[in-house]
């Protein structure tokens, strides 16, 4: 048997026992016990499983773990520390600070059932990283037309998501 792979997830290096072709989602959930990313369609058509790999959104339901080796994987559980690092927060400040996108999701009361929202938050973080002050049209475009598929929400929280992205943009540039 080959040596186990090692994945860097939310800033911590983890040896994983799964075979290299195993989709990242199954390892994040079943080996690392992270419940942020969740199985939606399993075929990269909905976005519920989205995570960041080196800052870019990846659909973990189809991305094999081999593709993430040597890269930084971030789930919503790891977003607060991404922000803390970026802002150089002290440990005690970091412990009580959420990523502004997560805080905006709370402040704008975005989730209904909430199942898709982990992926929505990941998409928002990626968008704001590239475009710190997106217009409504640009937000809609990012959540709809960026490959491999639109981010889908069956509860229909799109209006709340747009407001939360705009609020997060404001907080992050303040």
């Amino acid at each position: 048997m080959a040596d186990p792979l090692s994945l860097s997830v939310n800033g911590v290096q983890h040896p994983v026992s799964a075979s290299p072709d195993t989709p990242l989602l199954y390892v994040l959930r079943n080996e690392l016990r992270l419940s942020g990313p969740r199985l939606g369609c399993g075929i990269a058509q909905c976005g519920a499983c989205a995570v960041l790999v080196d800052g870019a959104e990846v659909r973990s339901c189809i991305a094999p773990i081999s593709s993430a080796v040597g890269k930084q994987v971030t789930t919503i559980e790891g977003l607060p520390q991404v922000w803390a690092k970026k802002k150089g927060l002290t440990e005690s400040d970091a412990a009580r600070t959420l990523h502004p996108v997560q805080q905006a999701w709370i402040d704008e009361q975005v989730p209904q059932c909430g199942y898709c929202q982990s992926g929505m938050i990941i998409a928002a973080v990626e968008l704001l990283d590239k475009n710190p002050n997106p217009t409504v049209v640009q937000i809609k475009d990012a959540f709809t037309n960026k490959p491999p598929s639109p981010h889908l929400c069956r509860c229909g929280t799109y209006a709340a998501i747009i407001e939360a992205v705009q609020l997060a943009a404001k907080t992050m540039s303040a």
Partner: protein
Amino acid sequence: MLTKTDHSGDCSVTPTLTRRGFFKMGGALMVSFTFPGLSAIAGEVQPASATSQLASWLEIRQDNTILVRTGRTEIGTGMSAYYAQVIAEELNVQPEAITLIMGDTDKTPDGGYSAGFLVGAANLRKVGAYTYQALLGLAAEKLRVPAATLTVTDGMVSGGGKSIRYGELVQDQQLDLKIPVSGAPPKVDPTSWNGIAGLDGLTVLGDPPTKPMSQYKVVGKSHPMPGTPGKVTGKTQWSCDVTLPGMLHARLVRPATLGSTLISVGTLDKTRFPNAQVITKQNLVAVLSPNEWEAASAARAVASSTKWSEWSGLPGSENLTQALRDYKWVTPSESKGNAADVAAALGRASKTLSATYEQPYIKHAPIGPFVAAADVRSDGAVTVWTHSANSQGLRAQIANTLSTPIEKVVVRWLDHAGQFGRTTFGGDGAEGDAAILSQLSGKPVRVQWTLQEDLAWSASSPGWVEDISCSLDDHGCVTALRSAFYSAQSNDARIVGALLAGMPCSQPKPGNWIATEWPYDKIQCRLEQVYGMPNLGADSQAPGLRGLIMRTPGQRQQNFALESLINEAAACAGIDPIQFRLLHTTDQRLIDIIHATAKAAAWEPRPSPHPGARRTGTEPVTGRGVDIMVRQNSYWMGIAEVAVTPDTGLVQVAKFTIGLDCGKIINPRQLERCMKSGVVMGVSEALKEEVTFDKGKITSTSWSRYKILTMAEMPEIKVVQISRDDKGFGGGSEAANAICTPAVAAAFFDATGVHARRIPLTPAYVTTLLKG
């Protein structure tokens, strides 16, 4: 007995407060229920075993925290906040003091199905009111002042210059308050229309003094949803997160068609999948492994070599309307009105209108497919982890399928993807698969459906056809109206795993119901009839396309036909469609929401179609349309503004204004969120959603084939709310989808001059329609 209060004078509904003893640690007032005067409530005698296990409904603890238990669950609309607000209001505390436990059958009293918020809220309001009276009694005794002189603010009781907190009233004591209830626990019942009886849960009896809504301080404020932080930080435990010691992951190998039987199971290559095993029971085929990815991969490999018989009992989705027309309808399931009077009125009218409206099958289509875990022990004890919207109903279904006494079954509820009605009757879903496979394997089993099998094997909201006609007098007023609605049943919550494994299931009866709450009191002469056939394609071998209720069931469909006809009648009479509606009602709540919504949309009165309407061209043409609905003590109004590009058939909803009077609004901000999101689902139904099927199976089994609205397609949405202190609570979220479709269809007519009598308005349908 410590105190005894009697609010009603009826000894059968008297709450009793009892002191069970003194406890140095952790005193509490425990509020539970009793079935009073059983002989007086005919037909509702309770077996004690079904309900006596539960400790309490509500607990006031000495640390001033309050625990509320409800068998109802959060389905994504905000119930968890609303229930806390309603009970906090009656107890005069802040909702933050309340912890809510929902849906676990071993920890909560039977709450019934979760869609019935109004019943649930009425129950908790009374529970709160009874408890408040008991607390006042305790405080009066302790402070030695009359109860009537006491006031309570944030859990602090004051009177006669003295104060005491709720927690101090129960310090070191164990107090029991028994409040009177009625109700029957769910059971699989072949005589019931959906095969299962007792869906409503317990109903609190009596009439305790509740706080007037005009004095509300907690209800009416936008308190935050308690579950939100966990959902955005990754701390929530979802029903897909359940792991149990020794648990196996299972994936199903589904039959090729809805009626296929198993010929031979495919080979499992143990060199590739060393820890996987195949379990088969009749037509239920599953691959199980301790490793989820191995189970998923092995299931695909086994499926590729599994052989099934062919079955072709479906008409194909393109022939749905014809299949409904061909069915030998006999008597309506339900009929309201006098046929002879209506026929006479239509016969003598100078002007009549007739139309047929239709819609294909659609899907609940949650983002997360069905998932469940079950642990069936050798001693017969069963635990199921689920996101069902009816824990007690599911408990009854599982007990029936496994032939286990219901007392041995525990259902634990967890968050998951919104289901929009598909688990209201407790069935469907992965729970049956998990329980059967756990029983067969002797291990705890977690079953995860794929999106493909969810779209193919979960129940659907059936397609329908409605014929509707009306007569107009010389002033353009409707003098009579006749409707006939034809559809397959929408109550089939049989457990898929049980059907495939040949195990006992609930047995629904085909039928439908008149869901319309009549909004036009000036249209008295009418005949409404609904017909319900068995599942499409049902035969001795196959259950066919299982039909289930979906958000705003029945009324969503029937209101599309009714309001579309009203729009056509307004156009025929040459009257503005809002003015036309005002001509047909004297209901002030309806009139008020119509005016408020029209004002918000800056509605300029004129008849449809728009003078510039056209059915050809590459440039978009615009139009606007309107509809109303009355449902569950709520008044809805929708105004759609659309752009149609005739040559491509593209319909875009640019703006939607949605108005609602739902009596007393509990949480304005969450209601606004739910109204806007409901519009997204409604516009999705109007423009995109259609289940396709061939002769044997559903073929719209991915998001590229079952299309739902994306963010870019969402209209600008404007919300209008009217809150009233004197009308009680109304349904505040559900019908936001249903208010969209007739308004969008009317706006399409306004833009093009062509009536759209079928949804969804896909480019393919629209181009055909406009070519005429």
